Every structure is written in structure tokens, then in C-alpha cells.
């Protein structure tokens, strides 16, 4: 009698565990790493909240460490204690992490959702799939904004990239990022170099000097920024006339904060931002991370994100589904960097060139700044 009850009980336990296998396979908490601010907020609204609704037991923790993700992941790896599950990084960082073996390689066909019309994930993301570990999310651009009330009287508002270098027509301070990337390209473009030759020229010593010389013509009027929040603050203060920053930040300054600022889309530089999964996660956490990624990068979710911030979805199939801003109710399509009206003249961040030349040009740029 006693034996039978024990047997029965253990069978019941065995059956119930077998039934719960899929749920138990996945960890119950997940740490997502992102950039904070309005961008992270858009991810919370578009990805994390609906995902949490489907998985009520899941605890999602956000860590605003994307800025130092490479260094932190290295340290975690060295300490043998990786606490992150899914990490949002720019494409260049994803390439570095992938090269160092700190990020997991992904197979888009298997791990990412198809488009609603059946197009494979690989085709739907297309060129955005840079590197073997990167799961693209958005296209953002670095571009210029200017104070509309600081345009001199009787002068057309600035509309071309070279207006940034034209101190005579457009006197006033400029905010530029404290690194050579983008600035060097813009400088060459405005020094008579044809657009398709910019990187050939920049690969040479003379070309680099030429770019720095062009930048030197406005150096005295430049305030150098390092965080995405700097330029919006400087523009709102009226401390600078024009400044470069991420287009989503400018959207927020113009549409959400109502500051007298306007966009200048000419020669905007596209870049990609997306997820990576750290290498060698324990099985249950990896299963959770993959499940989240599959959900968060499908066509609908990527289109939803554009309701909260003006970054373009990385999937081709998401573009027609971009709607209106969640709070302001304005159409988001014309504010996307990928909108045809805005993208007449664009650059795409040249990952290969900068991977090869970054250290060298960085050093030159920094010593030029100090000199």
C-alpha cells in the first residue's frame, strides 16, 4: 500500500515535470542592456511590455550600459560571470564583440521571424545584416539641426552640409562630435572631394591632413560633444547655431519639446543599432534570450517602435506599417531618416574603412584637437 502511493506520487511528479518542460527551459529573469533615455523607452513600450504580457512570470531588468558595453562584456567574460542576456549595441561595437568571440553567432533563417508575406528574415533585413552576430533593429542617422531664430536676416536657412563650414553666411558656434568619424567625411565633401572618392582620399596621409585643414577653418567656433544629450541641450540654450547629433534626439527637441530648431538632412550618415547575445550563456537564459529576440525583431514590433522614436525599422517589411507617434499623433514617416525626401544625399557608416583606420585617424584627430 505504502509502496503504491509512493509510486503513484512519483509518477505524478514525473508527469507534471514533463508537461512543464518548455516553460522551465527558459530563465525567469532577463537582463536587457540599452542606452537609456527616449530610445530605451521606445524599446520598453514596443518590445518589453508586450513580451511581458505574454510571459507574466518573467522579470525584465534594464541596464543602461550600452555606451560601455564592449568594455563591460570583456570584464564579465574575464571574471567568468556574464550577467547580461541581450545587449543593444551599435553595429561597429557588434563587429568588435563578434571578432573577440564575446557575442554569439546568429543564424537569421533559424532564429529570426519571417516577414508576414513569407519573405525570409535574411532577405527582409538584407544589407543590414552586417557581421555574424548582429541582429539589426533600427537605422538611425547622425545629422545636423540648427536654431531657426539664429539664421541671419535676409539669408536662406542652411540646407547643405557645406553651410556648416560657411562661417561668413552663417556665423555662430557649431557642435560637432569629438571624434573623427563623420566629421572627416563632411570636411572632405566640402573641400571639393567627390562623394564616391571620399574614402579613397581619406585613406591617404594627405587626405587626412586635408580633412583636418578643412575642419581647422571652423575649429575656433566648434563646441565638441561626446554624449547624445549634449547637442540638444546646447541648441536649446542657444549656445550653438547648428550641431550634429542623432536624428531621434533632434526629433525630440523639435516635436516633443517645441524648441525653435529645424533639421538639415543633407549628407546625413546612416548607422545601425541592434541586439547581440553574449556568447556562452547558460542554456535556460539562452533559450529566453532567443525567444525574446524572435519576438522583438519581427515585422510588427519593429514597426511599433517607430511610434515612439523617429528611427527607421531595419526590416523592409516594417516600413509600410510605420504609423503615427503614440502621444503626438503626427505621421512618423516624414521624420524617418530613410524617408525618400530626407535621404536624397546620404552616407552609410563605412564599417570596413573605420575598422582599418580608426586607431590611426583617432590619434591624429585627438592630437589635432589638442594642438
Amino acid at each position, binding site marked *: 500500500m505504502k509502496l503504491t502511493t509512493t509510486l503513484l506520487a512519483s509518477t505524478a511528479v514525473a508527469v507534471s515535470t514533463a508537461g512543464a518542460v518548455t516553460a522551465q527551459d527558459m530563465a525567469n529573469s532577463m537582463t536587457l*542592456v540599452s542606452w537609456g533615455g527616449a530610445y530605451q523607452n521606445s524599446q520598453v513600450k514596443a518590445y518589453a511590455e508586450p513580451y511581458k504580457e505574454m510571459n507574466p512570470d518573467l522579470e525584465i531588468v534594464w541596464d543602461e550600459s550600452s555606451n560601455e558595453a564592449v568594455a563591460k562584456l570583456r570584464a564579465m567574460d574575464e571574471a567568468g560571470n556574464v550577467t547580461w542576456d541581450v545587449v543593444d549595441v551599435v553595429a561597429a561595437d557588434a563587429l568588435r564583440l563578434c571578432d573577440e568571440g564575446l557575442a554569439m553567432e546568429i543564424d537569421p533563417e533559424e532564429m529570426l521571424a519571417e516577414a508576414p508575406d513569407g519573405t525570409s528574415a535574411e532577405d527582409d533585413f538584407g544589407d543590414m545584416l552586417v557581421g555574424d552576430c548582429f541582429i539589426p533593429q533600427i537605422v538611425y542617422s547622425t545629422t545636423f539641426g540648427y536654431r531657426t531664430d539664429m539664421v541671419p536676416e535676409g539669408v536662406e536657412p542652411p540646407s547643405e552640409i557645406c553651410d556648416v563650414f560657411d562661417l561668413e553666411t552663417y556665423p555662430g558656434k557649431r557642435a560637432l562630435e569629438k571624434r573623427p568619424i563623420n566629421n572627416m567625411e563632411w570636411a572632405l565633401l566640402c573641400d571639393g572631394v567627390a562623394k564616391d572618392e571620399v574614402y579613397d582620399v581619406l585613406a591617404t596621409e594627405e587626405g587626412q591632413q586635408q580633412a583636418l585643414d578643412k575642419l581647422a577653418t571652423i575649429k575656433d567656433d566648434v563646441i565638441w560633444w561626446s554624449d547624445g544629450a*549634449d547637442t540638444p541641450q546646447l541648441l536649446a540654450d542657444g549656445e550653438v547655431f547648428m550641431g550634429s547629433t542623432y536624428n531621434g534626439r533632434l526629433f525630440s527637441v523639435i516635436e516633443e519639446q517645441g524648441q525653435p530648431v529645424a533639421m538639415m538632412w543633407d549628407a546625413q550618415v546612416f548607422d545601425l543599432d541592434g541586439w547581440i547575445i553574449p556568447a556562452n550563456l547558460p542554456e535556460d537564459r539562452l533559450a529566453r534570450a532567443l525567444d525574446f529576440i524572435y519576438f522583438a525583431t519581427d515585422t510588427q514590433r519593429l514597426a511599433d517602435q517607430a511610434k515612439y522614436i523617429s528611427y527607421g525599422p531595419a526590416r523592409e517589411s516594417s516600413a509600410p506599417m510605420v504609423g503615427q507617434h503614440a502621444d503626438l499623433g503626427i505621421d512618423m514617416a516624414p521624420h524617418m531618416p530613410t524617408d525618400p525626401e530626407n535621404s536624397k544625399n546620404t552616407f552609410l557608416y563605412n564599417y570596413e574603412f573605420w575598422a582599418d583606420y580608426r586607431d590611426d585617424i583617432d590619434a591624429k584627430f585627438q592630437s589635432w584637437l589638442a594642438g
Partner: protein
Amino acid sequence: MATYTLKYVEKKPLSFSVPVVAAAGAFAGIFVGAAQGSIWQGILAGAVLMAILTFLAQGVLSESMEKPFRWGMVVLFAAGGYVFGEIPGIVVGAIFGVFYGWFIYWIGQGRYREKLLPYLTPGQVLGHFAFRVICGMIFFFLITPIVVVMPLSFNAEDFFTFTPEMLSFDPEGYSLKHYRDFFTSPDWQQALWNSVAIAPVATLLSVSFGTLAAIGLSSEHVPFRRAIMAILISPMIVPLIISAAGMYFFYSRLGLQGTYWGVVLAHAALGIPFVIITVTATLVGFDRSLTRAAANMGADPVTTFFRVQMPLILPGVISGGLFAFITSFDEVVVVLFVGSAGQKTLPWQMFIGLREQISPTILAVATILVSISIVLLTTVEFLRRRSERMRGLSPG
């Protein structure tokens, strides 16, 4: 050898008062000039304006004209302020006018000597006032950054900017929305809760261990006292980032990294040196014969400690505990390493906010924290005085 008469408060020659007041005017001109765009013009204008006014007051007008002249200066400066900065300019200008009106006569009539000993040489008088000016400046530069953020935290906009509405004291320009944001945002509330959960426990640990260590190290029969002391104090001397990186790798191996107790232990380690230093300092004045007397009367060491020693060194323990608490409450470097996102404390949240989104919510939090610190320190100081008074240690 200069000869001194008994009348020290006397009218000074113009060759003295004009340059002195002009120099003071040039100093103020630095700030006005910087605000208007050109420091050098400001300095020049300030010096010239003050020289002319001093010459007028001390060289042309009679002494009976002092009152009308000083009122005239207030009106003149307020009007000047209005030209530069509208309504707030009037206030600032009027304050400038009051001060410089007083200053011109204070220097010109030699009144600065009134409260000084009559036999001081001019050099000593200069030294006396230079000392005061330097002390005042130190206070000014320490306090201003804290004071400036307070009105900014009531900004109606989302930037660190004094808007034109704010400057003209328009109620539209002010808002409590950043305070509302702090009290309603789950991120900030979680951070506040984490800080409140971590700091007291870390303080308790540092106070217990620190006090015991200080008592042990102050008894003479402990070997290697200095070496042990140096090791215990080292978290205060080693650069924080080094301690933080070290703790990160060490705690990772122990499985403490990213846990509540990991952060508490790390903060306790940072707080211990403060407790040791303050308690050791109070122990210097502690009379050891009291513990022997207690033992003589049959008290065991634990009773002796709590009934005799502890009450006497309590001020040191409390101030050490306060420092430990503030260290934990303000700390951002170590928690960034040892904590994980689940232990995000207030300073961490502020750090993120400042980097990703320059939002005045940070200023609202800063204002609240400053107010709490002021209340806390005032209370402790009040209690200390009260207990001293009750024990008859200090008069009054």
C-alpha cells in the same frame, strides 16, 4: 616710520580710493562682461564707471551728499540692470548699487578701519581684509553650484536652461513636473528604494566593525597596530576605481557580484575607514581607568563596553556612522562595478540620466537630497549639543 594720530577713520586721498574702488568695479565687470559676451569690455567698463563715481562722490560732492548719492546709485544701477536683463536685471542691478554705494564711502571715508585695532599697519589691514575676502570666495564657490541647481529644478522645460519666462519671474516658466516625475517614475522609485535598502545596512556593518577595530587598535598590547590600521584605512587612500575593479573580479568569483549583499559589503568596506578614524579620535580622550573601575565593580567586558565606554565615545561613533552612510548613499563608482542593474542606486540613476538625457529630474532629486542632508546634519548637531548640555560638558 609713519606716525599715527588717534583719528583713524578719516577721509582717504583720491589717489587711494579711486584705484581701489575701480579695481572692485573691474572685478564685478568680469561677471557682467562674461554674461554679455566680452570679459575685457566688462572689466574696462566696470573700472572706468567705478573710478568716475568714486571721483564724483569723494572729490566733487560734499560729505553731506552721501545719502542722496547712494540712493542715486541704486536707481542708476537698477536702470542699467533693466537695460541688460529686464526684471531680474533690476534686482541684480539694485544689489550692485547698494553694495558699491556703501563701498565707495566705506573706502573713501576710511571707515574700514573702524573696527580694527588702531595700531595695525596698512599691510596688516590689507591682510585682514584679504583673508576675509578669500574666505568669502571659498564659501561662494562651494555653495553657488548647489544653489544654482535649485531654481533650475523648477524649470518648466526639459533642459538645464534658465528660460526667459523663468528670468522674468513668470509663473508659467516654473513647474513641479520634475518632482512629479521623480515621485511617479518606477525607475527613480526603484533607485530610491535600493539606496534606502543598501545604505543603512552598510552603515550598520561599518559602524560595528569600525568601532570594534578602533577599540582593538587603541589598546597597546595589539601587535602590528600601525600595519593593521594602514590596511583598514586603505579603501580611503586607494583610488576608488581600483578598489571597484578589484572588488568586481573578487566578488564575481565568490558569486557576490550583482547581489544585494555584494553591494552592502562593498559599501561597508568603504565606510569602515571613516568610522575607525572618528572613533580612534574620540578614544584618545577616553580615560582607560574607567573600564578598570567598572571591571573592579564586577562588570564583564561586554557590560563595560555598553554601559561605560560606548556612551562616552558615542559622538565619534555617530559622526563616523554618518560619514559611512553618506559614502554609501553618494557612491557611484563601486556600485557600477559590484552591482547589477537590479541594484541601481540613486547616484547610479542620476549618472545614467545625466549621460543619456539631460533632464532636470536629476536637479529635482539633487534638491531633495540636499534638503535631506541639511535636515539630517542639523538634527544631529542639535542632538549633540543637547546631550552635551545635559551632561554638563558645555555651558549653555
